[in-house]
């Protein structure tokens, strides 16, 4: 398995170049999406929630509770959308990986170069989201920086395993199924919209094990400023293990699929 800095840079430049054609659209989406959700759910629904003063929210407003959870969940979605489809298409016949690995680029170069770009997309989306959240008054300016880092880590924890899997997928319908049957349930039940503590006991245990729950908790504790250092280390290590594990598996699957 070879890896070269040149190769990785070349691969990442390719994706960046492609992005130049569509970035305007994605900016609109990445600003509009959080703004709409925060306005409708944070303000609108928040009006009803805050009226009740539920003990589950530990005294924070629904907007402040929701924003970091939504951010973590949005980064999961961005990671999935950026890594599942594009990786799958690139690995198929006449895909860009096939073209790239016919040159001195190795499969590992292709993987890392692409992940670098996906990471860049996650970082920029997290930044716009966090700024929008700040503008809504959901997070203080001083915590925007750490929040972006936490959210990017959450996104990467999905990006690398999904890329490792997507390269092996034969039928695109599976990718769609993965989004609807795995990502959406995670989105809904990992403490994004309500506190996991509300769930019945066994479901709570399941929810706490999911990567998105770890990401949501990390982002929320950073954003609300009530972070327990030990918990932060715990959540971060969980996510970091996923990132590294995804990379390790991806190195193998990319090698296997692209040199077959």
């Amino acid at each position, binding site marked *: 398995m070879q890896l070269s800095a040149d190769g990785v840079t070349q691969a990442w430049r390719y994706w960046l170049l492609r992005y130049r054609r*569509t970035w305007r*659209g994605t900016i*609109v*989406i990445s600003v*509009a*999406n959080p703004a*709409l*959700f925060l*306005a*409708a*759910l944070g303000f*609108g*629904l928040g*009006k*009803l*929630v805050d009226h*009740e003063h*539920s003990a*589950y*929210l530990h005294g924070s407003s*629904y907007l402040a509770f929701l924003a970091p959870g939504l951010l973590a969940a949005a980064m999961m979605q961005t990671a999935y959308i950026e890594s599942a489809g594009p990786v799958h298409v690139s690995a198929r016949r006449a895909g860009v990986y096939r073209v790239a690995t016919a040159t001195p680029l190795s499969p590992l170069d292709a993987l890392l170069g692409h992940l670098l770009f996906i990471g860049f997309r996650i970082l920029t989306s997290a930044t716009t989201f966090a700024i929008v959240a700040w503008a809504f008054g959901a997070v203080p300016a001083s915590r925007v920086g750490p929040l972006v880092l936490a959210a990017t880590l959450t996104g990467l924890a999905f990006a690398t395993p999904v890329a490792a899997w997507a390269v092996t997928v034969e039928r695109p*319908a599976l990718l*769609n*199924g993965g989004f*609807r*049957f795995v990502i*959406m*349930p995670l*989105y*809904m*039940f990992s403490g*994004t*919209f*309500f506190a996991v503590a*509300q*769930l019945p006991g066994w479901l709570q245990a399941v929810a706490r094990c999911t990567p998105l729950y770890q990401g949501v908790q990390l982002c929320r504790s950073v954003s609300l400023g009530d972070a327990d250092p030990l918990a932060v280390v715990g959540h971060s290590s969980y996510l970091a293990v996923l990132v590294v594990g995804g990379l390790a598996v991806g190195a193998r699957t990319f090698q296997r699929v692209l040199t077959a």
Partner: protein
Amino acid sequence: MTTARYERARPVAVMIERNLRIYRHTWALLLAEILEPILYLGSIGLGVGVLVGHLPGLGAPSVGYPEFVAPALLATAAMNGALNETAFLMYNRLAVERIYQPILATPMSVGEVAVGEIAWAVLRSVMITVGFLGVIAVFGLVASPWVLLGVLGAAVIGFCFACVGLLVATWVRGFPDFQFVQLVMLPMFLFATTFYPLGVYPRPVQVAVECLPLYQAIQLLRGPALGQVDAALLLSAGYLLVLGGLALHWGLRRLRRILSV
């Protein structure tokens, strides 16, 4: 049915038959479309419902939050089911696969193909509705037997948005354009009183929201689901039927211009 009538309905039935055959390969999609509102219901209806408690002022004694949200999620699912089927899939068939071209080389006409596709989309909306109603009945979230009126309501919603989708399909220039469709659909979903009553908004905003087709679709299903059946339902149904009819008229004209030049 007389033979002449049967002859007129036959092309529509054939388009439905074609879609049903495709469905044998893609039935999981329907499952996903029923699952999505159920997930929303579980998460926001039940989960956030605990944080919200009961909604005052929506009828006696008071309405639980999940019962309030469920019909709105159903209306959204019926809308998406129909709109995706026509806007996205019809565009694909029109411009990418171009399969309407060989169909039009047979005795089938543009109008029959379009009406057939819309009929199928309506059928899908109804299937999604029946599936969703079955699930919420199991959850014990059915407040009134009038909820069955929702099947008819879903057909009206399906018709309206299938026709709008047809019109969209004739305008779209490429798949990236569907981003703009999303940009309209998402805020409509979020603001059309899906998750909270109209009373949250100041009056001018209320008027704007009342003009949204999804708001009317939600009204059409929410009333009967909560046991409130009155003449206002006819107004909502009328609004959706007129909107659908206009979209169909315009969409057909554009489709004819695209397909038979």
